[in-house]
């Protein structure tokens, strides 16, 4: 059944992207702010269009693409992230790039890539969507053409991205060899029926797939591109990378790991747990050493990936109920993490626009010169660290709690210890802002009202999730429902 109506939101987005690019071609002197505003409008339209699909039944496109609550969740997330990043970028890109239309267009395209990663129920579609997202990101990371760092970051990203894609594809080919299909459901059926002779191919296939998706979400030891890419990228793109790209990776993982290869969890779950442990340890230990804010956030987000992978491991270790609960908690956590990260980057962008300095010592005395931004940074960092009042506390607690299974308690403990280590470097940032006086001659400055409002809204959301997580959690639970409805039969068989 080819029901093209389920793509309407992406038509909106893609159309918007084309429109934005075309506008600048037609009218090269158009104000960049208008492009940003347009992007925001398009993403809002995208969200609006997506809302119509909430709770709609079976919206399957040829078994390839499934538009359900899960997809809708990521549509809304994508739209939201893009809107915020676009606002963030307005001033930043105006000052630094000659043309901006492609930039905004690519943001939208990347969002589309993410949505289809979440929606795909077939490996080719998932792979192509993943590459769509990746390509957009490669370009966006290197968008500051005359900035050597930007180009270097982009090069590293694309070379390593392609390298890891090859591994992913090889893994997929092995799985294909065993199952002769690329549909998730088909893979699941075939894996369920497979004989023991195919174990070697299955195991190596899973590991290679894990490598590929691990690279996308920057799990150690596949994480090494991330800090460099984050540091070299334009600041809003760093925000974009650490939110949308990670969320997309987990969208793909959730879809794939809860259905297609869930049945063979015993083969890969230990590896996920191992990756999770390595990732959180590496991310947090390395973050301690950083002096550049973006780089620090990169490592900290690697640490966060480690925590999120706990859920994936739990999907492997627990029964379907644990998997469902953990997945919904993961979605909730992603929301909290995204909101906090965006808040942090709103502040960093605003500061960078003002001072041109993205090092941690550059924040010196921020509490004096721009207390609001200091507050925004504190809120987001504390949210990362999982301190109460802020999203991270509730979401992390829910995430770990729902992932607690007998076999994984050690990992949970490690995760909690790691989030404690992370507090150290967050406090180092706080120290610069609050404990030190601003550098000589630094005066109090006013913040662009748009940025102010956005910062306020984001920390408002962070606090709302932290204090009253109920509705968000419910939404997340609704979003994960379809994952387990479809896989239910399989799970029973397993």
């Amino acid at each position, binding site marked *: 059944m080819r029901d093209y109506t389920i793509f309407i939101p992406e038509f909106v987005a893609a159309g918007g992207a084309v429109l934005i690019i075309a506008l600048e071609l037609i009218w090269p002197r158009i104000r960049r702010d208008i492009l940003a505003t347009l992007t925001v409008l398009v993403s809002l339209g995208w969200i609006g269009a997506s809302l119509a699909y909430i709770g709609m039944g079976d919206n399957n496109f040829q078994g390839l693409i499934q538009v359900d609550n899960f997809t809708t969740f990521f549509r809304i997330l994508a739209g939201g992230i893009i809107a915020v990043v676009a606002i963030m970028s307005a001033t930043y890109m105006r000052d630094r790039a000659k043309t901006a239309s492609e930039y905004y267009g690519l943001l939208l395209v990347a969002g589309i890539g993410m949505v289809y990663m979440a929606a795909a129920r077939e490996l*080719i579609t998932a792979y192509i969507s993943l590459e769509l997202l990746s390509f957009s990101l490669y370009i966006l990371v290197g968008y500051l053409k005359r900035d050597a760092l930007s180009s270097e970051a*982009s*090069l590293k990203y694309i*070379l390593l991205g392609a390298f890891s894609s090859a591994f992913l594809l090889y893994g997929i080919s092995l799985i294909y*060899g065993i199952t002769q299909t690329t549909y998730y459901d088909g893979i699941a059926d075939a894996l369920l029926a497979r004989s023991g002779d195919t174990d070697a191919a299955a195991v190596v296939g899973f590991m290679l797939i894990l490598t590929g998706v691990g690279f996308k979400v920057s799990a150690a030891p596949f994480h090494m591109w991330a800090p*460099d890419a984050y540091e070299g990228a334009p600041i809003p793109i760093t925000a974009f990378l650490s939110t949308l790209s990670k969320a997309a990776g987990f969208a793909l993982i959730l879809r794939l790991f809860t259905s297609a290869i869930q049945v063979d969890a015993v083969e890969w779950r230990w590896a996920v747990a191992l990756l999770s442990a390595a990732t959180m340890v590496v991310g947090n230990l390395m973050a301690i050493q950083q002096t550049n804010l973006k780089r620090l956030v990169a490592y900290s987000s690697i640490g966060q990936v480690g925590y999120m992978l706990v859920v994936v491991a739990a999907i492997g270790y627990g029964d379907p109920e644990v998997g469902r609960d953990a997945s919904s908690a993961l979605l909730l956590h992603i929301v909290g993490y995204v909101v906090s990260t965006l808040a942090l980057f709103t502040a960093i962008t605003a500061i960078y626009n003002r001072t041109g300095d993205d090092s941690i010592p550059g924040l010196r005395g921020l509490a004096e010169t721009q207390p609001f931004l200091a507050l925004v940074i504190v809120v987001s960092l504390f949210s990362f660290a999982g301190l109460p009042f802020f999203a991270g506390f509730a979401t992390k607690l829910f995430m770990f709690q729902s992932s607690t299974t007998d076999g994984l308690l050690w990992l949970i403990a490690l995760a909690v210890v790691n989030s404690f280590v992370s507090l150290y470097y967050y406090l180092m940032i706080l120290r610069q802002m609050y404990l030190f006086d601003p550098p000589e001659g630094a005066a109090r400055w006013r913040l662009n009202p748009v940025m102010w409002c956005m910062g306020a809204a984001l920390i408002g959301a962070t606090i709302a999730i932290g204090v009253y997580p109920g509705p968000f959690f419910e939404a997340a639970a609704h979003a994960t429902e379809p994952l387990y409805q479809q896989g239910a039969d399989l799970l029973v068989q397993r």
Partner: protein
Amino acid sequence: MVPLENYLVLSAILFSLGVYGVLARRNAVLVLMSVELMLNAVSMNFIAFSAYLDPSRITGVIFAVFIITVAAAEVGLALAIVIRLFRNRATVNVDEAAILKW
């Protein structure tokens, strides 16, 4: 008759050579070429699987088509970035493109 394993082994060799190339070579373009080699190996894998095991649905062949497409696009984009880097830094040596570290 040529058994399936032959193709798979050949593909594995190609893939490994590609891996070696990525790890060993310093020229960004050569690294890219090594990646192409790896993707080629994967395509061959898919097609071999498709031809031997799945001739009716041929999903592997389709996948190979997409891989070739993506690979081509990737090369184009990557080369643009290499050229970009060359303009900025006058080097295509990946070991020298290491300002971002630690």
